[in-house]
């Protein structure tokens, strides 16, 4: 009985999003003949995977009341560096592993620098990560000389692109990251403190908890996930571009907020983020399937983002 109640409140949090997803899917099933097709769902999954991986990290960051604007640039830099490392090494599984390790290390380093700026130098997260966004993009441009690194070898490509049975690997990566995110946010001490810091940072500090340490960990997680996203993107496209990941931070923030995570902190949900990403993915897929004029794409996407955020805020007001 308890379990059932817990279950029903669980879904209640997402009723708005689920309703929007179901409504939109029904609409698309009726108007676009190819929407209800396994291949199309595989498409949507593939398309949202990159954003979702970043958004999971963003969810945890926003839960602490912070923000990470550097993730898009992070995607570009980690992709460029991993691809360059890969090109310098002999083809093989080991070199693929080395490049992935280097990529994730760079991403984590960017996160740690973000964390240091925010905790040790007390910069507001918005400014610290905005500065890092521009700096990291600059490094990516300089490192690559503005050029695309392409023609990567199979061992690397096979790790993140292609299929496991019928499921594309980017979807599998995103699913693993989601499960990891749910686990971190709900079952670990980092998650607990992230929520507490977002709720009332002063109070957590007074309790003798090292707030700075946990903030640092949270930004490092966000940086590492952006790196995984960058590696997945690089392998999907078989190319690393210095301009890749442009505005990905905003896409990630949009789906996080659509998912009911509060921008002021203290409340976060990876499942909400997943549903938000799914809704945004379906919207974009639908715009393409229904052949909507190019000029209308942004308008429709914007309205749907606003719509779902408004529903969330009405809901949270009524439940409190």
């Amino acid at each position, binding site marked *: 009985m308890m379990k059932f109640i817990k279950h029903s409140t669980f879904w209640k949090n997402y009723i708005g999003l689920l309703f929007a997803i179901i409504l939109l899917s029904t609409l698309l099933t009726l108007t676009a003949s190819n929407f209800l097709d396994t291949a199309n769902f595989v498409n949507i999954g593939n398309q949202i995977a990159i954003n979702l991986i970043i958004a999971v990290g963003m969810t945890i960051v926003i839960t602490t009341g912070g923000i990470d604007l550097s993730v898009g640039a992070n995607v570009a830099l980690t992709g460029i560096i991993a691809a360059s490392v890969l090109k310098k090494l002999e083809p093989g599984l080991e070199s693929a592993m080395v490049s992935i390790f280097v990529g994730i290390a760079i991403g984590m380093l960017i996160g740690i620098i973000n964390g240091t700026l925010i905790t040790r130098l007390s910069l507001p997260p918005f400014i610290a990560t905005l500065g890092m966004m521009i700096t990291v993009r600059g490094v990516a441009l300089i490192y690559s000389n503005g050029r695309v690194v*392409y023609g990567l070898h199979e061992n690397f490509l096979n790790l993140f692109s292609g299929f496991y049975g019928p499921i594309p690997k980017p979807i599998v990566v995103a699913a693993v990251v989601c499960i990891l995110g749910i686990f971190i946010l709900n079952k670990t001490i980092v998650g607990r403190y992230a929520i507490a810091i977002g709720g009332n940072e002063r109070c957590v500090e007074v309790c003798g908890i090292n707030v700075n340490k946990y903030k640092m960990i949270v930004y490092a997680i966000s940086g590492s996930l952006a790196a995984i996203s960058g590696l997945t993107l690089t392998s999907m496209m078989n190319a690393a571009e210095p301009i890749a990941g442009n505005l990905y931070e905003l896409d990630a923030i949009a789906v996080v907020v659509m998912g009911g995570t509060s921008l002021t902190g203290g409340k976060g949900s990876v499942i909400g983020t997943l549903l938000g990403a799914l809704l945004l993915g379906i919207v974009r897929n639908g715009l393409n399937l229904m*052949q909507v004029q190019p000029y209308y794409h942004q308008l429709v996407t914007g309205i749907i983002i606003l719509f779902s955020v408004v529903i969330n805020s009405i809901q949270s007001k009524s439940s409190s």
Partner: protein
Amino acid sequence: MKKHVSLICIILIALMGVVAIAQAEQSKYSPVLGEIPTPSKEYRIGVLVKTLINDFWLDLANGYKDAAAEYGVKVDVYAAPSEGDILVQKQILDDMIAKQYDVLCVSPITDTNLLSPLKKATQQGIPIINVIDSYISPEAQEKHGIEIATFITTDFVEHTKSAVEFVAETLGEEGGEIMHIMGLPGNPSAEERKQGYLEAVAEYPQLENIGVWPGDWDRKKSMDVAADVLQSHPNLRAIIGANDTIALGALQAVKNAGKEDQVVVAGVDAIPDAIRSIMDGELLCTVAFFQYQTAYTAIEVALQILEGTFDESNKQLKLSQEVWHAGNIEEKVETYRSQYTGLKDF
């Protein structure tokens, strides 16, 4: 410092190999101009490009410098740090005007950011050549008291037309469904290339235009769009990308769907990535539009203006372009290797 050394190296290498070829190729571009006069003195020409962080503008700068060396004039090339630095570019032009060049060749980052220094240059009687992008329209010139001698550019509408033409040839009588993935909606070159696509497909009854989708110049987004369209139009035969990045993104979607044998993909710009893909038999074609030669021509026009032989009714000079495909790619790379930074690795 290192950057300067490598830049100088590039220029030197280019100087050694290029001049002969440039001379040979020149005939292709000069007919519109007529004879290029020998300068009566060592003119100083001020060049302002958008930035020097990508190959396109680097190639342009090399064209200017090689032409200057060939004709015995002095060229100084200036650039903003990035394509976002519109104010910096304006300040650079202000400083350049103080240096009293004989002619200015400018490629403004936006169509408005250089208006005030250009007005100053016009007041001082310095001839201005507008090169490639962004275009200072006659209306804007009149409104802001600017006089542009001529606009030397490439025809963006023609780019996608050439691509569609080649695709139509490739598909033959049978034809089929064709789509366009455009650049960022609202961006002038994206709109012009879209217009070229629409005009060209209308001329081929065997090609059925199924529409235009936005790709925002982004590889991933273009892949997503192509994947969706392959879903809604399983019989698609051809995709025209507004540039090579878009085309390569779309190509990835075609490969993911296992439809390489059914769908051909064409791009524009002739970036190294696309050339490699054509060599590998994946991308069908790309359109090269010769930024090096454009700059070279700008110097020639400058000389004509200075010596008074320029036909002033030529308010716009559009330079030629070529479709590069599997049939000619090796030869093109060989021909243009010394002029284009991106071709050096082939």
